[in-house]
């Protein structure tokens, strides 16, 4: 069910007070997003199942740390999920992105499905990404969506690791300039 940003803020505040019903609202509204993020990074459903549970236990414990003035609820939740999944990916070298081929496709900029409050921000970010050379845009997205290290990216695109590092740093600096923030 679609839940507004305001409702999510309230549900997180309820979660911080120990309100299980509010926590369930948070889970129902956000778990498909977080599971997608985690699964794309880990590429293994058994690991993703474990990490998703850990992430929401963390959300339950730290909901009081969420500051609606500093970020949107989904950004806060997605950051927790990404960081936990990235830590796990670095710890677990057994992951294989080919286990879940359907998630390997990178999302494209012209997908009309996004209907979030942050749509405008997303449009701007994609416009800036489109300003990068295609190969550089791809490595930025490979790193973000799949949590690939420079070395993994280098293997995938057949370039030296040092080149990938230079490309990433330059592309990110270019993105920052383009976004102007």
């Amino acid at each position, binding site marked *: 069910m679609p839940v507004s940003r305001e409702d999510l803020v309230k549900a997180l505040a309820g979660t911080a*007070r120990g309100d299980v019903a509010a926590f369930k609202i948070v889970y129902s509204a956000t778990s498909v997003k977080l599971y997608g*993020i985690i699964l794309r990074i880990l590429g293994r459903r058994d690991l993703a*199942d474990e990490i998703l549970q850990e992430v929401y236990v963390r959300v339950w414990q730290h909901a009081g740390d969420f500051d609606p003035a500093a970020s949107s609820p*989904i950004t806060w939740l997605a950051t927790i999920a990404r960081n936990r999944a990235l830590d796990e990916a670095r710890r677990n070298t057994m992951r294989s992105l080919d286990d879940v081929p359907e998630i390997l496709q990178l999302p494209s900029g012209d997908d009309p499905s996004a209907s979030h409050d942050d749509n405008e921000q997303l449009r701007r970010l994609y416009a800036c990404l489109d300003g990068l050379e295609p190969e550089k845009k791809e490595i930025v997205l490979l790193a973000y969506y799949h949590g690939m290290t420079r070395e993994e990216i280098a293997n995938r695109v057949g370039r030296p690791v040092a080149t990938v590092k230079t490309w990433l740093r330059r592309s990110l600096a270019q993105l920052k300039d383009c*976004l102007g923030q």
Partner: protein
Amino acid sequence: MTEEEDIDGLAAEYVLGSLDPPERRQVDARRSTDAALAAAIAAWERRLAPLSDRGPDVVPPSHLFDGILSRISAQGVHSGQTAAVLPLRRNSARRRALAVGVSALAACLALAVGWVNYMHPGGPLQTKMDCSRLYKDFWEKRDPQKFAKISAEQLAGVSRMALRAYDACEAGDEQDAKALFERLQRMKY
């Protein structure tokens, strides 16, 4: 390359996820004491956050929420939540609280308090009165003797069943909900 640029590039790659394991660990260790690095990380999280909105959603297996509830019940509530559950504890005899075990009772009360919050009028979380009442009654009228012996794992099971009953009620199947609550009442531990 200046120091400032270096920090920003490191923060950007940290958020992007492309650092190798030793570098990532270094940044993890440094960010709590290095304010410039922490600020750069926060800025990059904000900049790249819209990308998380774009990836395809994937529905997690339905049993995972039960697993999360079990872990939460087993751990008990954290300190910030204990304050919220204390007022309800007053009438229900302190000795019993000891017997029940803090985490189990706290989790029960957290649920009860949660439902009071849930019923709070005017908020967007408001729901039909009768379902909430049914759920709340279950927790308030539960037999304390019976719950004194319950394990955290069993409590999680009870919580799940009660939530399922509530869901059934919300879905308009009040008979199913009542049957579930009655089963919960009769349950032996």
